[in-house]
């Protein structure tokens, strides 16, 4: 099944235009005298159905990279990025060190964790590590419900932040022993006598290889290899402890007890419980032996389908909605040759001509979290994290609450009548609650590269206040794209 093709073709919907009525779409106003320049340019341009790409200029290319590798930028950050050689800028972005999430008040409450994460996305200077945390969250998925009242959401979020730019082998091994994943895909229930297939199947189908690159027998044999993984609580010295019991406690007391234990260095971790693990001989993806979880993962990573699958996922999120096989293979071979180094993967994407050429301009749709955080950063309103948590549902993105184990939609998949109203209404609410709005004309230059279509120009130009202008900018089609 060509899932990428599916996404595209099923979204090829109506062209709404007006032959002979519209003078121009996609013009660029340069003089920043909006009313005059836009009218003039509009009447002067021909119809090409596309925005004029600014990626040929250093500022345009820097803004393009920052919209994709980060959650947005201020004018000062953009100017500084634009002054660098592009290759150096990519290196700087990719090599950013992560900043830890500030302490979360109640780590057993997933909404508190998600709010802290939104806050961090909006405020941390280490933007790329944060963006990668969101990327892995969307690929190596989990659902907060399975954490019950344990701090597993926070722990998984911290895992992706700390090793999400290291090595995929390291990452997928850690994920296999991550307490939230252990619960989410039912490893916790999997025994030698009755291996549960859920993780084995989704690991191969969605996280690494893709359908068609394994058999049903591989799913069952893989389930045997992954049987017996359990979550334990260990103290600061790595010694097993009894977790506190929720039964007979109140949620507040329970959260406090856990919080104290964690402050003292206790943490949850996955282990292989020998008594529950099937140590017998299996045949898995053509390999025979008493395969354990680490060996099973190495076998998966040795499959030719693995690197292309991950490369494609990253390309669709960061580069182009429909990557060609040649592009996928080129990026995948660099990824594979580096022994699955994630920085190599991302550098390969950011420097590929498919990323830097004009056709890449505004070819990706910002997801709801990206859209909301970009708004916070553009308006310098980092205090909106709680609003983001509340507003995600209507745009169909509640972090740690994905529609299915396949993760978030991408690009066209985010677009619906309901979701677009929700974006407009988010913009209206944020603008109304921001007393000191920055200069909107300057924002058109920095946030939209000064490249807008005639609708956005018309609404912007008809505005009577800075609130109206900022609404036009944040609600515009241009700001939904990256």
């Amino acid at each position, binding site marked *: 099944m060509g899932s990428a093709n599916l996404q595209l073709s099923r979204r090829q919907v109506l062209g709404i235009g007006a032959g002979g009525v519209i003078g121009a779409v996609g013009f660029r106003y340069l003089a920043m005298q909006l009313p005059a320049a836009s009218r003039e340019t509009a009447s002067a341009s021909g119809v090409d159905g596309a925005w004029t790409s600014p990626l040929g200029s250093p500022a345009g290319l820097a803004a393009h990279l920052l919209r994709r590798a980060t959650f947005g930028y201020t004018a000062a950050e953009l100017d500084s990025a634009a002054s660098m050689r592009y290759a150096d800028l990519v290196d700087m972005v990719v090599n950013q060190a992560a900043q830890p999430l500030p302490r979360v008040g109640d780590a057993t409450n997933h909404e508190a964790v998600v709010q802290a994460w939104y806050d961090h996305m909006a405020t941390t200077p280490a933007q790329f590590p944060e963006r990668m945390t969101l990327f892995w969250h969307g690929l190596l998925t989990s659902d907060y419900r399975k954490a019950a009242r344990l701090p597993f959401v926070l722990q998984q979020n911290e895992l992706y932040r700390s090793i999400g730019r290291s090595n995929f082998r390291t990452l997928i091994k850690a994920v296999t022993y991550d307490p939230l994943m252990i619960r989410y895909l039912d490893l916790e229930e999997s025994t030698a006598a009755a291996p549960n297939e859920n993780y084995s199947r989704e690991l191969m189908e969605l996280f690494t290889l893709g359908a068609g690159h394994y058999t049903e027998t591989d799913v069952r044999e893989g389930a045997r290899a992954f049987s017996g993984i359990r979550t334990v609580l260990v103290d600061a010295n790595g010694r097993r402890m009894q977790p506190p019991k929720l039964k007979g406690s109140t949620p507040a007391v329970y959260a406090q007890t856990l919080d104290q234990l964690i402050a003292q260095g206790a943490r949850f971790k996955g282990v292989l419980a020998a008594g529950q693990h099937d140590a017998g001989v299996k045949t898995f993806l053509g390999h025979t032996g008493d395969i354990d979880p680490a060996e099973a993962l190495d076998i998966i990573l040795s499959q030719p389908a693995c690197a292309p699958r991950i490369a494609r996922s990253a390309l669709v999120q960061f580069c182009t909605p429909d990557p060609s096989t040649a592009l996928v293979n080129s990026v995948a071979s660099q990824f594979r040759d580096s022994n699955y180094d994630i920085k190599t993967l991302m550098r390969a994407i950011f420097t590929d001509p*498919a990323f830097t050429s004009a056709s890449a301009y505004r070819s990706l749709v910002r997801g709801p979290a990206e859209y909301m955080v970009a708004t916070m950063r553009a308006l310098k309103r980092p205090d909106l994290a709680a609003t983001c948590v509340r507003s995600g549902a*209507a745009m169909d993105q509640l972090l740690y609450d994905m529609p299915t184990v396949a993760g978030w939609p991408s690009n066209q998949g985010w677009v619906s009548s309901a979701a677009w109203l929700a974006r407009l209404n988010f913009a209206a609410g944020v603008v109304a609650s921001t007393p000191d709005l920055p200069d909107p004309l300057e924002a058109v230059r920095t946030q939209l590269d000064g490249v807008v279509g005639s609708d956005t120009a018309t609404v912007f130009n008809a505005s009577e206040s800075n609130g109206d202008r900022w609404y036009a900018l944040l609600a515009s089609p241009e700001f939904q794209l990256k």
Partner: protein
Amino acid sequence: MITRRDFMVSGITATGAGIIVPPVFAKSVFAATIDDVHNDHVLVILQLGGGNDGLNTVIPYADPAYLQARPTIGIPADKVLRLNAEIGLNPVMPGIKKLFDAGSVALVQGVGYPKPVYSHFEGLYIWEHADPTMRQTEGWLGKLLAGQLDAQGHPLTGCALGQASTPAELLAQNASVSVIDSIPTYAVEGGEGRRVAGPALYRRTPGIYGALFDQALTTAEYGIAALADSQNRYTPSVTYTPQSTVYGSKNSLAASLQLTAEMIVTQPSVKICHVVLGGFDTHQDEDTRQSALLAYVDSAVSAFMQDIANHGMADRVVLMTWSEFGRRVRENGGKGTDHGAAAPVFVVGKPVKGGVLGEQPSLTSTVDSGNLQYNVDFRSVYQSLIRDWLRADPASVLGASFPELPIIRTV
């Protein structure tokens, strides 16, 4: 009469990105009435997301192999709501039982397709596109809307309700779909200025997503206007009980079905409504989780059917359930079941010819080491509903002809 403004557009092409949005005949502004929908029948699709376990929904209680395969999660014969001497419903489904007894449920047994897949996403794709070979790129309902039911492009003909994304079943190149999470939130907020400015930003958006974005806003604008006074024209006649504690479900089915009733009662253009309840991927703790979900389905569907009847529209509405697959015959070690194959489909409504169709697949003579062998192709169900209920041409949607199922009453 419809006043239509149809625009021919030149193709919007992004070279290099590999996307071509071809020239299409765009459908833009619509009148409040429709003149070419040839009947007032409505099909409601209820998707049970995650793979509902058919064997614990319709229980073959008389077959000793059932409890042998399911020693901990099996439902004993004395608890089952018996439909006949072989099968019965999960005890949490008294409302569906009542509808069955009234002759308003066609229960189709053993529904599936050749060479079952056990992946959620392939299974979804197959059901959504009515194509086990996974070559079709348009959803079966989208194709039906664009080609036949809604050739005029009325934005309130195909609706996805109680959700924020467009379901794949409704996606097709020329299908306009209204996605409405709830009526109060279906609005351009922020005052009169925003109500004008917001949609005005999306009249002729450039770029590869331009048509898609503009359609989303045009559809929304129309729907908001059409629904402005719907609360004056619809009051629920029954209580739709939300169940916030249902484990793993992402959607409030009660609210979605109440919204569906409101749409059907107030919008004569509505033909297809899609609602969804997730959480059926019961690899563990199926005994408690699936019961909670099915109880919710039972109460929400019963309330919806009663509400529709109270509004005098029982003859207009048929509801069909589906799920991407059933589950393995034998339970696993975690009081759950793994991905499986064939399962029952419910078709509910007064126009339905009640009873059991198809046969319960054998629990012992299975395919792929322990999965149920289908005996009714799911496209037979689609075909019957397209032809006999919606009175459209199934072949152009399904590409082939399938054995006929007498699901809809002919008199």
